[in-house]
């Protein structure tokens, strides 16, 4: 190679490298000129993801948790009153109403299973509500082991013997017969009078309600500003020593919980009982009432609607006293020029709520109708609406917000 050719080669390499470095600097260069947030280029739209997360945590979840503690206390008082009044099967109206109120609120909190409720493999949540691991037989075994003349303690009992699901059975089951198959029948049950069986159930309900209050109190303490202050944990995401290495991780932890709507609400609460998805009955295409979440109070539609309402709050933001809405995912999407997706998400949430509301009567009633009847068709429509909503969430929403599916972000990628 001649000197001239060598020089040209070096020159072209140097120019090339300079051009490359210049391009590398484009992003920083232009951005660097607008370092102040008062710069017009940077100021044209603002959206604070942390503020959204903290608003939902502090103004939606925390008050619901505090409210549930009160509901649990009211439920415990009503159960205690029922027991003291003689534990008659037809004297449970007040306790049933209290259970409905607590159940309704808890169904909203089911969608917010993050933070304290999710710690230790959801131990605190399972103590309050163990579904889908439920067993009416186990609850009757707990009742059988509870001496009505003494104070029973449910603290050490397995989750399938206590919690809101156990109270549903104890407060709404009409028969005094136990729910166990032959070999698992509670000892001495057959020898007890009907009144004694109800007294044992009431005593166990009392113990379970006391434990529920303790669990609700522990959850409330974990959220309270003067307790565990979980909102503060979220607030410091990304800081040194924080539970979350970044704000994104904290948001991802929060959005992971929203997938309750996919697995539990869509598939387990609607799809399986309707026979759309595989279920415990094993009869494809036919309804399976055994797969219903609420099989004693028959409050399934209310539960599904409560799940959806909680999800809608995350999407749209909480209603403000002064009108308008607090920060939510839809506003976040609009702030990053994804308004079409925000509109889609909001309309799909509304459509899902409308579809569930449109189910005539209770879910079990609708499912027991004719295959081509309005009830079954309405349940199918509700399922389809949930599928549409979850599709948007699992695909475009996650992509757009740069978030991950639950349990999908721990390993390396490339």
């Amino acid at each position: 190679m001649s000197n001239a050719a060598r020089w040209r080669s070096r020159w072209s390499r140097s120019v090339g490298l300079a051009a490359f470095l210049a391009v590398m600097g484009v992003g920083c260069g232009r951005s660097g000129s607008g370092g102040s947030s008062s710069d017009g280029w940077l100021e044209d739209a603002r959206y604070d993801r942390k503020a959204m997360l903290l608003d939902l945590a502090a103004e939606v979840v925390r008050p619901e948790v505090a409210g549930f503690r009160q509901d649990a206390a009211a439920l415990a008082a009503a159960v205690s009153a029922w027991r003291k009044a003689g534990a008659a099967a037809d004297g449970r109206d007040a306790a049933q109403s209290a259970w409905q109120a607590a159940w309704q609120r808890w169904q909203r909190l089911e969608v917010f299973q993050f933070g304290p409720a999710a710690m230790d493999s959801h131990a605190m949540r399972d103590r309050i509500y163990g579904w889908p691991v439920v067993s009416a037989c186990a609850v009757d075994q707990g009742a059988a082991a509870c001496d009505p003349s003494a104070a029973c303690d449910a603290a050490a009992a397995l989750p399938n013997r206590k919690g809101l699901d156990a109270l549903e059975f104890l407060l709404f089951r009409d028969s005094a017969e136990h729910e166990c198959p032959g070999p698992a029948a509670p000892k001495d049950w057959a020898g007890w009078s009907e009144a004694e069986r109800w007294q044992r159930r009431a005593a166990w309900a009392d113990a379970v309600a006391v434990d529920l209050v303790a669990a609700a109190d522990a959850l409330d303490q974990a959220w309270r500003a003067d307790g565990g202050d979980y909102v503060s944990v979220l607030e410091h995401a990304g800081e040194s020593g924080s539970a979350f290495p970044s704000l994104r991780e904290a948001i991802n932890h929060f959005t992971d919980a929203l997938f309750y709507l996919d697995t539990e609400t869509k598939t387990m609460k609607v799809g399986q009982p309707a026979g759309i998805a595989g279920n415990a009955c094993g009869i494809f295409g036919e309804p399976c009432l055994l797969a219903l979440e609420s099989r004693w109070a028959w409050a399934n539609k209310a539960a599904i609607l409560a799940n959806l309402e909680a999800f809608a709050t995350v999407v749209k933001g909480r209603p403000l006293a002064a009108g308008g809405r607090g920060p939510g995912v839809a506003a976040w999407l609009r702030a990053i020029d994804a308004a079409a997706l925000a509109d889609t998400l909001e309309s799909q949430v509304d459509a899902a709520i409308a579809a569930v509301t449109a189910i005539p009567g209770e879910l079990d009633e609708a499912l027991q109708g004719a295959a081509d009847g309005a009830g079954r068709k309405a349940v199918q429509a509700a399922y389809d609406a949930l599928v549409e909503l979850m599709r948007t969430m699992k695909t475009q929403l996650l992509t757009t917000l740069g978030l991950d599916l639950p349990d999908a972000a721990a390993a390396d990628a490339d």
Partner: protein
Amino acid sequence: MRWPASLVRRAAEPVDGASLATWRFGLGLILAVAHLRFVTEGWTERFYETPVHRFYYWLIGPVAPLPAPGMDLLHLLLAAAGVALAVSWRPRWMAALLALGTAYADAIDLTRYLNHHWLVVLLCALCAALPADGRVPRGALWLLRAQVAVVYTFAAVAKMGPDWLLDGQPLNTWLLARTDWPLLGRFFAYREAAVAMSWAGMLFDLTIVWWLSARRTRLPAFAVLLLFHGMTALLFRIGIFPWLMTVNATLFFDPSWPRRLGGHVVRWLDRLPVPTATRLPRWAIGLAALYLAIQVLLPLRAFLYPGNVLWAEEGMRFSWRVMVREKHGDVSFRVRLPDGRSVVEVPRRWLDGEQEREMASQPDLIWQLAQRVAADHRAAGHGEVAVFADAWVSLNGRPPRRMIDPETDLAQVSDTCASKPWILPGPTDRAAHLGRVAMAGGAR
């Protein structure tokens, strides 16, 4: 044919093996840490023991993991091999062990496929095949450099598309999720930053090998490389990839460069055995040429398939399409029984979150799971069921669209290397344009 003869002669010239020994040191340490992570992060249990279903590679078929604690012990053994490679103790044997061990572990579940794991297998295989003593034929260095050049070049080729260059996707999406970054985070909020960084990334991949190859530009290029890979390491969870490529860049330095570090380094290098001969047989050159041809042709196979490789994923693996797409899918299966009844099956019955994420956007994995669904229903006595996928995918922020023909019974089709007619056409509209989100915490 003078130039090939001179090329062969130059390839056979013995050069100082110091840079190769130093590269092995870095590679060995990185792999030691990587394999230790498998044990300390609990990945062996999560990846190998917990899954109900594992995906397999075409032609290889299902590969079973070792029974517990076998996989833990394997990764510990590979970590020890990494240390041994680093200190040049029986380096070729250690490299062979690392290549085979990594290939085996990766073959257990296709959803764990990573480009950099494939690169580790190739580099370790080369390391096992090439001389590893005090002086080495120049061709050994050339081959390793060529391997690194293949990675960068095809990574650049993969970026030469409208999503990357015009829309700044998927960087736009990824950067938006990281606006809480100190200092730079505020700029990540803007699509323009993503587009600029996309171009920079493509140009970096396309040209870095040339800058590193030229003596005059080598040092500044290496500084840029450190900045680039340092940024990617901080921004994305891509494991050892940035460190691996940084160590690989040292292969382009003068073969004796580590001796300039002096002291202990020189004494260590001088202890490495010097071979009596460094002849390069002709068959070795032929083999190297064949190897390189395969390395070039393997990524190029993606162009034989119709449509967008990022959508259909045909020819995606082993072609260095590193971090070029953000895909999320939603898949369920409609199983139709012989009597006409049908039921919906959701992937979570068989997969964990990570597996589901990977499966939901890759047609061949959807087909594999459909086959499993069919097999399980047959085993349950439901007869010859038909399985249809309801698969929707969002690519780079676009609205979700159907990926699999919902009328194709996936239980009845077979997987070949031919293009799959049941993959529906990908999107033709532009990727999402996102931006203008403000800095996290800024409004509080």
